[in-house]
């Protein structure tokens, strides 16, 4: 027989024991069951990748059973190539680049289309006399290489413009020093860097490719075909946690910016908080474009079809990339 005091004590002891066991199990689970995965970003740490940072910092990956290493872009590497070569599990990449790789038979798979609207634009000086696209004839246009050239080339081809392409780096100095008449810029990055270099918005004129009927969705999350076939749940958990990270970032931009700046500071990157704040706000626009918070991640078949057409026409690809083999909805419930 138990005495009264012990009767009262017993449930507490039981609860305590259960708690201890639970904690031990959780400990074991975190150690044993957290899967280590890596993701390669296609650029240096910046607000363009806030979703990954928030998922990491807020423990969303951990909750998904993942221990994620977020690796920024490094010179002489290609994120998609690393995915193909199994050096990383996931990669962030532009749709056009991924489609070119896929058309070459590389086993890359679109798990989610994050950026729905192109942020690519062309800037000209307001006093350059370039008021419309036709004024670009016989002018020098600074261009970034490879897939960044898809949209401008498609534009020049469609309009039959005759101009001089100047291969340049991402520096805006050639444009600012008027070595080129027009230059490419991402709305979330170079466009604002011009502002931060003292160029007033009314001193330049912009042509947004999305407005010119050349909206190529940009950032997406990619994996090897094989990974998806073997571990669809792993892919889903990673993608869904990342997209949730974006939602949290949009809900609490200040916290998101802290997450960005921590990484920027650690990497000693020459950027500043005001610039990253701008970038995050633009990312919100182009990620939520068309789909809204609930539909984040979807690759619209029409977008893929349109992109296929342009890539084929410009000779970037030799045959269209079929939706079925290129993209899976890892962003949605199974």
């Amino acid at each position, binding site marked *: 027989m138990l005495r009264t005091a012990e009767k009262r004590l017993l449930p507490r002891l039981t609860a305590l024991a259960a708690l201890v066991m639970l904690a031990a199990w959780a400990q074991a689970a975190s150690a044993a069951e957290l899967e280590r995965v890596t993701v390669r970003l296609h650029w240096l740490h910046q607000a363009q990748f806030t979703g990954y940072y928030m998922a990491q910092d807020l423990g969303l990956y951990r909750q998904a059973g993942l221990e994620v290493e977020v690796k920024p872009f490094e010179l002489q590497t290609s994120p998609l190539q690393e995915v193909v070569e199994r050096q990383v599990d996931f990669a962030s990449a532009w749709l056009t680049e991924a489609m070119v790789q896929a058309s070459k038979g590389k086993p890359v798979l679109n798990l989610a289309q994050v950026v729905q609207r192109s942020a690519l634009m062309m800037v000209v000086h307001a006093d350059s006399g370039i008021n419309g696209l036709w004024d670009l004839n016989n002018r020098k246009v600074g261009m970034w290489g490879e897939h960044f050239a898809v949209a401008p080339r498609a534009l020049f081809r469609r309009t039959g413009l005759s101009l001089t392409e100047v291969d340049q780096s991402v520096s805006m*100095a050639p444009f600012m020093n008027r070595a080129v008449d027009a230059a490419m810029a991402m709305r979330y990055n170079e466009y604002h860097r011009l502002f931060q*270099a*003292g160029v007033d918005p009314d001193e330049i004129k912009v042509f947004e490719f999305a407005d010119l009927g050349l909206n190529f969705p940009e950032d997406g999350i990619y994996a090897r075909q094989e990974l998806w076939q073997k571990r669809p749940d792993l892919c889903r958990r990673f993608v869904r946690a990342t997209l949730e990270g974006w939602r949290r970032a949009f809900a609490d931009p200040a916290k998101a910016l802290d997450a960005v700046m921590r990484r920027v500071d650690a990497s000693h990157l020459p950027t500043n908080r005001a610039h990253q704040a701008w970038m995050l706000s633009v990312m919100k626009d182009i990620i939520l474009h068309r789909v809204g918070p609930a539909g984040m991640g979807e690759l619209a078949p029409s977008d893929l079809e349109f992109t296929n057409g342009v890539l084929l026409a410009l000779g970037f690809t030799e045959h269209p990339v079929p939706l079925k083999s290129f993209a899976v909805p890892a962003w949605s419930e199974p």
Partner: protein
Amino acid sequence: MSPDPRPHWLRLRPRFAIFVLAGVGLVVLVTSLLTYQDNSRALLEARKEHLLSLARAEAWKMADYLRGVSAPAQNLAAVLDGLPRQSETVLYDLLSHQLERASNVYGMAAAYAPGSYDPARKLFSPYVFRTAQGLERVQLDAAGYNYPRQDWFLIPALLGRPFWTEPYFDEGGGNALMTTFAAPFKRADQGEGVVTADMNLEALGRQTRGLEVGLGGYPFLITRQGTFLAAPKPEWVMRETIFSLAEEMDRPDLRALGRRMARGGEGVLRLIDPALGEAAWLAFAPVAGPGWSLGMVVPESEVLAPVREAAGEQAVVAATGLVALVVVVWLMVVGLTRPLNRVVAAARRLSEGDLSTQVNDVRPGDEVGELAQTFNRMVSELNRYVGELTATTKAKERIESELDLARQIQQSILPRSYPAFPDRPQFDLFALTMPAREVGGDFYDFFFVDNDHLGLVVGDVSGKGVPAALFMTVARTLIKNSGQHHREPLTAMNEVNAQILPDNEMMMFVTVFYATYELSTGLLRWVSAGHPSPLLRRAGGKLESLPRLAGMAVGVDDDLGLELGQVALEPEDVLLVYTDGLDEAVNAAQEPFGLERAEAWLAEAASGPAPEMLEGLVEHWRQFAGAVDQFDDLTLLLFRRKL
């Protein structure tokens, strides 16, 4: 009467001190403020000027230093412009030769446009750079470095003119902050490539940061894109631009400043410094070459510190001066007011009745001394006057007492008993006299001439006072004498005149009513020597006017020209004899009492004992005259026949 003047709120000493202190203090304050403003302005101007010269000088020094970087590259570009295409080895030697002499340069390259050096070899760019072991040679394209895309190649090649790149972190060069100068060279008027000179910015940054701005200020350096190369906060370097700060802090003025600086402007302006967070002065000047802008910032508080210190010293001096001034003023006022206070104390003693008081310890020679002397003189005068006054008063008092005695005597010689003749029931008789002064010139008398004849006298001596009284006494005595000797009033009066006239040196005269009344018949016989006729009221109440008889006053001429009047009195007839003090009395409005009022009174007056009736008349007369001082004596005599 004017209202009482408002009293002073403070006594003389504090009032004087306060006024002087307030006045001088105000002047000192205003002067100090003006001086402070002037000094501030002057110092600020000087400091601004100094700051701008400093910025210019340092920017010039920096540009000079940078020419040591750009010159070798430009020299080599000029050499390559004129030479036929050289072998790779010669190019390396040329680069090394330049580099050896240019200690500020980290590395130099001769970068050819794709395919222009050797169509078989797309990129060609020999590069020489410093290492610990000496100069090292390398082909820039070796590691797949696509240099034609880079700013240092692209921009000068496209523009055909030299170019300084924005600073960058160079991973190949030890992750150092670098900038590159590049000068294009040509062949047959075709751009063939650029010669570059790389420069490590660490030393320049250190040097800039070490610039002595003074006064707690700091230097900073920004590029043409506004990027900080040297900044008050190390974390700003290469990360923030002046424009990103403006954006982050929402400071449009910073952005405007950045644009001026980035465009190569120079100037001085005041701003709230983003690093110090306080008002500061900024001078900026462009660095020729890369087009950077060097800024010098000094906090305004430090600029104005000397002015504030000077103002502080000035305040101390002014305060000390004011205190000294107060002391001096106080002493002066004390010196001034102490004798005044003595005079005041003496005046107080005087007012309390001390007529012996004097102000003795006040030095003469100034206004206060004069005041004291005057005061002393005044007290002496006062003493003398009071002495005289006392004597005069004593004399007057003596005279007054004598006059009083005289009045009593005068009154005593007039018959005052009533009834005057108790054993004669045939008539009722009473008379009174009221002198205008202590002693009068009026008189009356009644006496029996013989057993059946009663003499009635009323007289009025010309003049007043003691002489009149004396004259009256003489006249009365003479009349009584003559009356008792002569039954005829006319004879009696003429005799009196004859007696008075010879000795009348004073030329005094007397009007006299003199009558004899025959008790057995009621016949009244009278003469009037210049005297008004009496009033008669018959028994029935009817007033009867007695004729005005001729006759001059006694003492004027030897022939009086008297007429004799007679009237028979019936029982209850009332005769009123008066002097001109009755009808000539005036009231406050200067109206005379007049004979009419006396007649009216007599007509109305109830019959009664003679004293009561006269008192009634006197009361009536007094009511008319009120408090007005009468000029003439008043004498009344009332006779009533009873049987």
